[in-house]
């Protein structure tokens, strides 16, 4: 194998190498907290660069699109695929992870000797997340899913001196494992129905379904159902969202943003990979199911977000609602992929920013973030409050923010695909969403200051907030370059 043959798995290789170096630093140096963080950051940056190089190589007509034990260029059983889809996912996941890690920076420094552990887990989780999006095979996708999930279970309970952190981690682990089991059962049934676990190549699921009439359509339907349910857990789509509010509330604020944003990107991308690459012929079966899940997510997410008193729970339920909006893009099939990417990318950037503000207001180690702590934020920290307002406007879908563009594109995609009822439902839930986000804005801007505590914004967090706020507005004003890229990021 030459170097070019490794390009499809370059990001993963870089991240794993980074993880090993972080652990080695712990052995070699006395107090390598800051150095470890820098190495982790560098590994993420290098992985992002590798993804950019993948994109360029694809533009130049690279022929080593797959990675497999059997060699190149088109192995019989490809395991990892390199296409515009996976390269785009890579850039988004790695950049968002860098921002997430920057928010967690202060948490890392206070962890002492455990910081190496923390950073290693983050790198492994990110590698797993990208693997989910770049897999060419159900088995590989599952391995990526589990790599990411197990690392994140541990991260959720990382501040274990707090009782509710344990609770969050255990809950996340139990429900997450259940989701994995459901997913892998669905994968097994897909194999039963199609005789393959591969997405590409001779004898793949796609080819089988294109060339044959399925003998047992019930098994295929059940298989697709289980796969969708398993992934719905990961992306917190209703009614499989119950873990999210408790886990977000219990996990350290410094890392929730990365959990929420990273898993969503990878989860949606993986779901898209399965549906668009392996099961495109079955769109008439899975699109209505996704439309129903989307509708349920919007309703449950916005309504429950409206009655929460804790900002992290509000954001968790808002995440459920946004999962619904993103799923609207899926029902449009291939036409919706660009909208899905735009939504997922901009939503991830906003969510990282929002949780960065949470980490500042409530402390990066803390679990809960009651509304009372946000009272009068605009008097205590005007810039922070304005930045948060921009993010909230984006989440509410107000124009001149990315949230508006994202909503318009997915609404257009779903309506064009004939799902007018879903768009009308989405419009109605958007109204409730206005209440959710403006209520939080009211607490920050309209109520008097609750405490005199000084709000300290760490420099790394300030940088993340600047990036998140600027991209939210700039890509809201001029979304065209990103929209064009997103529309190119199609799976093979």
């Amino acid at each position, binding site marked *: 194998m030459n170097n070019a043959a490794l390009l499809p798995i370059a990001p993963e290789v870089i991240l794993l190498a980074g993880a090993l170096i972080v652990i080695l630093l712990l052995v070699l140096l006395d107090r390598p907290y800051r150095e470890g963080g820098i190495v982790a950051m560098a590994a993420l940056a290098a992985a992002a660069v590798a993804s950019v190089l993948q994109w360029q190589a694809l533009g130049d007509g690279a022929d080593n699109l797959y990675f497999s034990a059997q060699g190149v260029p088109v192995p019989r059983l490809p395991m990892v695929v390199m296409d515009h889809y996976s390269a785009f996912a890579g850039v988004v996941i790695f950049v968002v992870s860098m921002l997430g890690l920057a928010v967690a920076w202060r948490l890392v420094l206070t962890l002492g000797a455990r910081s190496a552990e923390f950073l290693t887990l983050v790198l492994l989780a990110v590698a797993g997340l990208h693997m989910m999006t770049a897999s060419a095979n159900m088995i590989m996708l599952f391995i990526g899913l589990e790599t990411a999930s197990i690392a994140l279970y541990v991260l959720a309970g990382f501040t274990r001196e707090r009782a509710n952190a344990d609770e969050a981690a255990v809950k996340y682990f139990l429900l997450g494992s259940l989701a994995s089991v459901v997913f892998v059962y669905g994968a097994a049934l897909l194999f039963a129905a199609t005789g393959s676990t591969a997405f590409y190549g001779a004898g793949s699921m796609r080819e089988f379904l294109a060339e044959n009439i399925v003998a047992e359509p019930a098994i295929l339907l059940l298989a697709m159902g289980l796969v969708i349910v398993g992934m719905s857990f990961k992306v917190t789509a209703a009614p499989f969202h119950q873990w999210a509010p408790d886990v977000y509330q219990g996990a350290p604020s410094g890392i929730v943003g990365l959990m929420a944003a990273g898993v969503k990107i990878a989860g949606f991308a993986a779901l898209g990979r399965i549906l668009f690459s392996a099961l495109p012929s079955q769109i008439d079966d899975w699109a209505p199911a996704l439309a129903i899940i989307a509708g349920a997510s919007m309703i449950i997410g916005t309504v429950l977000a409206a009655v929460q008193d804790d900002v992290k729970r509000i954001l968790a339920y808002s995440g459920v609602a946004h999962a619904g909006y993103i799923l609207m893009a899926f029902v449009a099939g291939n036409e919706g992929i660009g909208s899905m990417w735009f939504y997922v990318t901009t939503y991830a950037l906003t969510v990282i920013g929002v949780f960065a503000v949470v980490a500042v207001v409530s402390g990066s180690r803390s679990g809960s973030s009651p509304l009372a702590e946000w009272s009068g934020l*605009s*008097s205590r920290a*005007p810039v922070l409050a304005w930045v948060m307002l921009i993010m909230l*406007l984006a989440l509410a879908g*107000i*124009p*001149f923010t990315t949230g*508006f563009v994202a909503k*318009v*594109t997915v*609404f*257009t995609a779903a*309506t*064009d695909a004939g799902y*007018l009822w879903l*768009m*009308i439902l989405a*419009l*109605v839930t*958007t*109204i409730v969403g*206005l*209440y959710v986000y*403006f*209520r939080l*804005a*009211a607490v920050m*801007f*309209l*109520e008097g200051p609750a405490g005199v505590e000084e709000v300290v914004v760490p420099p790394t967090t300030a940088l993340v907030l600047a990036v998140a706020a600027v991209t939210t507005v700039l890509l809201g004003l*001029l979304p*065209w370059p990103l*929209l064009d890229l997103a529309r190119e990021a199609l799976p093979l």
Partner: protein
Amino acid sequence: MVLPTLILLPLIGAVAVALVPKNRSELVFPLGLAVSIPPLVAALWVAANFTVGEASFQFVTDHTLSESLGIGWRLGIDGISLWLVVLTALLFPLAVAASTAITDRTKSYLVAMLILETGLLGVFLALDLLLFFAFFEIVLVPMYLLIGIWGSENRGYASLKFVLFTGAGSVFLLGGIIVLGLFTGDLVDRLSSFDIRVMLDVELSSTAQLWLFLAFGIAFAIKVPIVPFHTWLPDAHTEAPTAASVILAGVLLKMGGYGFLRFNMTLFPEATVDLVWVLAVLGVIGIVYGAVVAIVQPDIKRLVAYSSVSHMGFVLLGLFALTSQGLTGGVFVMISHGLVTGALFLLVGMLYDRRHTRLIDDYGGIATVMPIYAGFFLYMAFASIGLPGLSGFVGELAVLVGSYLTLPVLAIIAASGVILAAVYLLWAYERVFTGPITNSANEGLHDLGLREIAIIVPLILIVLAIGIYPKPILDRIQPSVDLILERIEATTSYEVPEHGATVDEGAG
């Protein structure tokens, strides 16, 4: 390039205000006032260079942003939007000048005001439906903050109610825009297109027209507001700071009337003709209901707020009379109402700044201590009632004449609105100003200062000028509204009545 400049000027001003360093906070207010002037200059320049008699859009900027989605930075101005733009640009400097009572977070206040101005100018100038919607919706945010942060006691409730009511309407507008954009896309062989000039060529079925009319209409009905969607307005007006009330009544409500005229009547002519009765009746209900409720208001600001409901009813009646006089009159009422009600809110605000109460019962006989103020108030009350020679008369007469041609019964009922206006305004005037001073707390009230007189006098002069000689205004409005009527005639079986007085004769 004058229109993009016009929209961006307030935004540039907002940035300038935001950049004032903390230790030079005394510069914030003068700078805010200064940067609100250039948009007025630009708007007047546009008005001066506007080609009279030309019905379609002028000063057009067309810059495609996304080929496949059919979105563009498309701006233009015609007779319908021209005066609304001038009105907007005129009211903002006056509203800012009337904001000296704001001492808390002045910088944020001025930034919010200037962003609001950008949004409103954009609403009236956008020729791309999605761009229009973006401006239409962004207006919510600064107005929410203005009411919510700088309003009076019940501001939290009022501001959230404002956002939810008007936001609820606009999401259906967004839905309608997307559907219509997809229809238009089929026409030009793209996914979608939002150019309203292209949209005119889309042939829609009657059912599609009806549903789209309703989706668009609900958003505009809430903004106007049409009874029964008006309940947000008295709360928002009452709790808002003076400047926000001025803009709310003067400009924000006009987004609704403008929307009906520019989009509903232009894009869905068949549905318009079918629904004429429904909307005209709702307009008349608004006229009478708003006036009757205004009579019994104990709160003077609420009284003016309900009078807005009544006046906007005239706008609606005029538009859906579907005659040249009615449409022209409807647009003219919007302009006149913006000036007169804006002035009334400014005046109420000046009184509130002195006594911090808006209850009519707390006053009585204050004409003896504030003669200039009382004179100004009476003048604007007469303008609002529609005294001949002042601006209110021209528009309402044109509406009544125009609607009498097609909807005579409704026109006769609507005429009672003029009488009721005299009742609520003059009765309120009597209780607040005439007789001896009943409340000793009012004895020390001082009359208007130079700054306050300078704010009101321009409005007094304009109200008089366009009341006596409305021709320059009407000449520019009429060709554009006639174009809409021509389109309705061309696409439906409806015929605009030819006979009857022209607006000029009627108003002369």
